[in-house]
């Protein structure tokens, strides 16, 4: 009975959502074609739809390149962030030594690193990747640290009586699995920030003349092709949404099933 009710609810939510989106698109179309009437001020949905069609080939290349930059930055950011966060969470000395510097570095907006990214890594994929790295690392690091710090002592004690000696085996069997939800949450935030950084770094041409950001700014904006620009904006948003959904599905629903009882999802 409960299930039926749930399904019914979902169905209605689907309908309401469709109505919501359609309303916005219709209003947008009406405003664009009857009030603004200038494509470069506000392209209409109809024009944007055709813009998608005209950029359909180049957009795939740009998506691929931007995802590559994102992957480089997120990969390195995750590895370094988890390692540093674990070290800081596990060793008081490391914590005290690194905390002030991390606080300062964290306060610098990742975009301010673009000049050095270009100077250090030249116009390669790595320089946009570096900016993503700077954007993604801190939430991952801080969350890993928090996870390590908040392990309940009871689990450590239980593991010890079951034969876990100090050190690595405790970290591997207790601290790490306990911290996994924290790390996952940090990674999810890091992904969001990282994706913004990709677009910004590419706009500045950090990796040369490639990527969604580069084309959006240096082609479509420069040539006032606002219909294509909006098409790119939509794609950038959709990819962020998709990445988040995929992550949630793969990590939170599969690996972290055990947390269902602990948090209100």
């Amino acid at each position, binding site marked *: 009975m409960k299930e039926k009710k749930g399904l019914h609810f979902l169905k209605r939510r689907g309908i309401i959502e469709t109505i919501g989106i359609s309303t916005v698109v219709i209003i947008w179309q009406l405003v664009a074609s009857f009030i603004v009437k200038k494509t470069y001020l506000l392209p209409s949905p109809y024009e944007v739809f055709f813009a998608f069609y005209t950029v359909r080939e180049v957009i795939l290349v740009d998506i691929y390149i931007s995802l590559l930059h994102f992957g480089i930055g997120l990969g390195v950011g995750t590895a370094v962030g988890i390692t540093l966060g674990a070290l800081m969470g596990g060793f008081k000395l490391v914590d005290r030594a690194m905390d002030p510097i991390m606080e300062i570095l964290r306060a610098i907006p990742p975009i301010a690193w673009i000049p050095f990214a270009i100077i250090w890594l030249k116009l390669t994929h790595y320089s946009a990747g570096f900016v993503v790295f700077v954007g993604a690392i801190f939430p991952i690091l801080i969350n890993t640290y928090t996870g390590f710090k908040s392990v309940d002592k*009871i*689990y450590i*004690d*239980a*593991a*010890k*009586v*079951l*034969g*876990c000696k100090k050190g690595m*085996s405790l970290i591997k*069997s*207790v601290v790490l*699995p*306990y911290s*996994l939800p924290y790390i996952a949450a940090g990674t999810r935030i890091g992904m969001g920030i990282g994706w913004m950084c990709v677009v910004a770094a590419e706009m500045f041409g950090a990796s040369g003349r490639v990527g969604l950001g580069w084309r959006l700014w240096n082609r479509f904006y420069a040539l006032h092709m606002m219909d294509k620009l909006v098409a790119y904006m939509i794609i950038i948003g959709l990819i962020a949404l998709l990445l988040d959904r995929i992550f949630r599905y793969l990590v939170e629903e599969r690996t972290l*099933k*055990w*947390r*269902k*009882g*602990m948090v209100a999802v």
Partner: protein
Amino acid sequence: MNHKLELRNVTKTFNTEEGEMEALEGISLVVKPNEFLCIIGPSGCGKTTLLRLVAGLDQPSSGEIILDGKEVIGPSPDRGMVFQEFSLFPWRTVLKNVEFGLEIKGMKDKARRELAEKYIELVGLKGFENCYPYELSGGMKQRVAIARALATEPAILLMDEPFGSVDAQTRNILQEELLEIWKRTKKTVLFVTHSVDEAVYLADRVAVMSARPGCLIKCLDIDIPRPRKRTSVEVNEFREQLLMLLSLERSKACISV
């Protein structure tokens, strides 16, 4: 000598912000093999502290703890412990929780699984192997904790008010099951409680602890044959004695048990 576990004049002092705090004062105690010994005492008298010392999770300030002729210096799977609070690893299923100690030991997959399943069945949770702790009731969680503690086949089982947070009826059932397990596995059990009823129903001997700083003030042999009837005259007599002892002010001298 017929000693499984011996505590010789064990004391524990905690360093707190307000200075030193004496939690245990001169505990001397002998537990025989296969014995079911209950330690009973008011809240805060140092029962958990005592069990943690035996488990090796804390070090005594003075005195020694000897298990099977060897001094206890740190935690080891030869002493299984069931904690007062829920201690199952929430990220592991029932089966994986019970397998934990065996995994650490380096036991092979198949042997590990078989052994874990045996103990899960022993505590009556067959069919719940793949549940996560959040899916279990309080009583079931403590059963898994017992299975987990038994799985490494420890020489002695340390239980810290394991049934303190379940309702009275479940508690009675769990007590009966524990006695059954104890009979079958022939373990030595050191069981801490603050419930007089529980102590009299379970124990071969009940050692009574005084309020803080804790020390043992009396030991009673509960020589009632099992299965015991919770409402029988003998049981009530012991209950009365224990209640009387617990209500005593701190005037009695410490004794060796």
